[in-house]
């Protein structure tokens, strides 16, 4: 133990030196000896101040940029392999590759589309519903910051960060269509969905001029820090529509279809928890105290939700399951997403606790009452969790955490500004409506072009073999 401590001390001392040396070397050279006139002296002082100012800005930008690049990487990790494993473990063995492939395909396709036109549609222009084409092919997106969105980081960083959100949102929908949707149909539908549903919603909530943009003076300012409406309500509601349109899996609900590997789901869930720090805390768009605040809110809400779901299960079934615990955690992560940068840690605990219970109820009771086959509970967790989270954001947001409407202006219910809950409701309803209508239309279109559902024989044989010509696990025989 002592040797460990002294080894650590030496290691940190060396690390310190490593950083101290370049810092020391960069100190401004000492002032030259007395200048001839006072005018010259003043100029020299002003020059130095300007220099220092530039250095401070560069240092801040450097800190913010490094955090944002890390956050972007964390959010991508949430899709691959976080979501891929979480969903993958929940499906039957014969469909494992298919569900992973759907997420992976989106990592590729959405990335290309974002670069070509997606970023511009979501964050260009200043219309109320959709952006423009001025940044198509990433024109004008480079090292210079875009002060409308994030004044201290290159716009290119902001763009690549937002891309990771655009990837994971359609990926969430694959949870409802799992085990029975054609790969070709999935590719076409989700591509169209990204263009027609996600891009406008992202613009409305986060884009300049957007109808629901709380930060930039939208008409119905909806507080949505990291995407409760844009990501979770949109994908969750769309998931429900897809599940209803596609119909139930063959054999559902009589035939048992338990998860083939909760081990993989567990790994995926933990990757989601850690990655979500990039999703929520990164939405501060700076390495600031707001990022810290969002980080904390995220973590505490998740912990509370895992506990409340597990407690509900323990009371109902006499045992707390691993699947329940990780599902609860994900529910908490979803619910805190719109609230992360607006609420303090104690309210975050409350939001998480409530979300765990609400989503547990949705997934175990409501789903069986209505009988829809939302295979991996995309609606039950993301749709419901996003909705309750968005509404509770209006309740618990405080200006002391984030004075989003201006210094001293009340934000949410805890500030006495209860009408914000009404605004949240407007945003929630618009997200629901947009997702509902957009999804129905796009499902019909996709059905006409590629078809949506595999045949019954293909479904029984499994999507890995029929859609991809592979088996997930090639055991010896």
């Amino acid at each position, binding site marked *: 133990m002592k040797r460990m401590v002294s080894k650590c001390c030496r290691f940190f001392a060396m690390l310190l030196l490593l950083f101290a040396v370049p810092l020391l070397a960069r100190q401004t050279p000492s002032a030259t000896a007395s200048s001839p006139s006072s005018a010259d002296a003043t100029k020299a002082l002003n020059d130095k101040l300007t220099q220092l100012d530039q250095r401070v800005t560069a240092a801040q930008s450097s800190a913010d940029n490094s955090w944002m690049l890390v956050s972007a990487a964390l959010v991508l990790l949430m899709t691959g392999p976080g979501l891929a494993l979480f969903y993958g473990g929940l499906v039957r063995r014969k469909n494992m590759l298919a569900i992973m492939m759907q997420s992976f395909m989106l990592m590729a396709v959405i990335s290309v589309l974002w670069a070509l036109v997606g970023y511009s549609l979501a964050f260009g222009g200043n219309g109320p519903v959709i952006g423009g084409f001025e940044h198509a092919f990433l024109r004008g997106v480079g090292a210079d910051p875009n002060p409308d969105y994030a004044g201290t980081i290159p716009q290119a960083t902001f763009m690549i960060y937002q891309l990771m959100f655009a990837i994971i949102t359609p990926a969430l929908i694959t949870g409802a269509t799992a085990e029975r949707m054609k790969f070709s149909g999935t590719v076409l539908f989700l591509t169209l969905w990204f263009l027609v549903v996600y891009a406008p919603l992202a613009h409305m909530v986060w884009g300049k001029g957007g109808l629901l943009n709380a930060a930039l003076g939208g008409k119905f300012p909806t507080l949505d820090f990291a995407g409760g409406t844009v990501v979770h309500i949109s994908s969750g509601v769309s998931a429900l529509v897809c599940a209803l349109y596609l119909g139930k899996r063959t054999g559902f609900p009589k035939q048992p279809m*338990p998860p083939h590997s909760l081990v993989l789901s567990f790994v995926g869930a933990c990757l989601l928890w850690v990655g979500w720090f990039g999703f929520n805390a990164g939405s501060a768009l700076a390495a600031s105290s707001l990022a810290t605040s969002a980080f904390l809110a995220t973590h505490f809400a998740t912990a509370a939700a895992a506990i409340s779901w597990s407690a509900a299960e323990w009371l109902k079934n006499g045992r707390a*399951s691993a*699947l*329940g615990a990780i599902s609860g955690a994900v529910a908490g992560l979803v619910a805190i997403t719109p609230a992360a940068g607006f609420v303090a840690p104690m309210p975050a605990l409350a939001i998480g606790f409530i979300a765990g219970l609400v989503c547990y109820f949705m997934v175990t009771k409501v*789903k069986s009452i209505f009988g829809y086959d939302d295979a991996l509970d995309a609606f039950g967790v993301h749709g419901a969790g996003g909705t309750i989270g968005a509404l509770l954001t209006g309740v618990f947001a405080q200006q002391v955490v984030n004075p989003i409407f201006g210094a001293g202006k009340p934000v949410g219910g805890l500030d006495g500004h209860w009408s914000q809950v009404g605004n949240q409701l407007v945003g929630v309803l618009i997200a629901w409506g947009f997702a509902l209508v957009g999804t129905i239309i796009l499902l019909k279109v996709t059905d006409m072009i590629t078809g949506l559902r595999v045949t019954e024989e293909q479904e029984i044989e499994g999507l890995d073999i029929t859609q991809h010509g592979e088996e997930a696990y090639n055991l010896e025989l």
Partner: protein
Amino acid sequence: MMKLEAIIQPSRFESVKDALREAGIEGMTVTEVRGHGRQKGHTEVYRGREYTVDLLPKIKLEMVLPDKLVTTVVDTILKTAKTGKIGDGKIFLSRVDEAIRIRNDERGENAL
């Protein structure tokens, strides 16, 4: 020659295997199987969905024995595989018409 099939509890398998080796039995085929007799299964719950799992894991031993060894083997298995609870399993015996060693074409009890 007799074929002996024994379905036993997985937890007893190691003891049975060791006891058989000590009794001089050198050949056996082991498979992991699922099944039940009168033993009840258990319930699993995944996100509110309940599944009754009534196919329980067991170990199946298969051996072809010369007639003179049958009683020894049966007694050994009975002694080491028994726990006294429902689910201990069963032993089945049947006649074998022929046995052939693939390596050198030996037949009959010499092939065992």
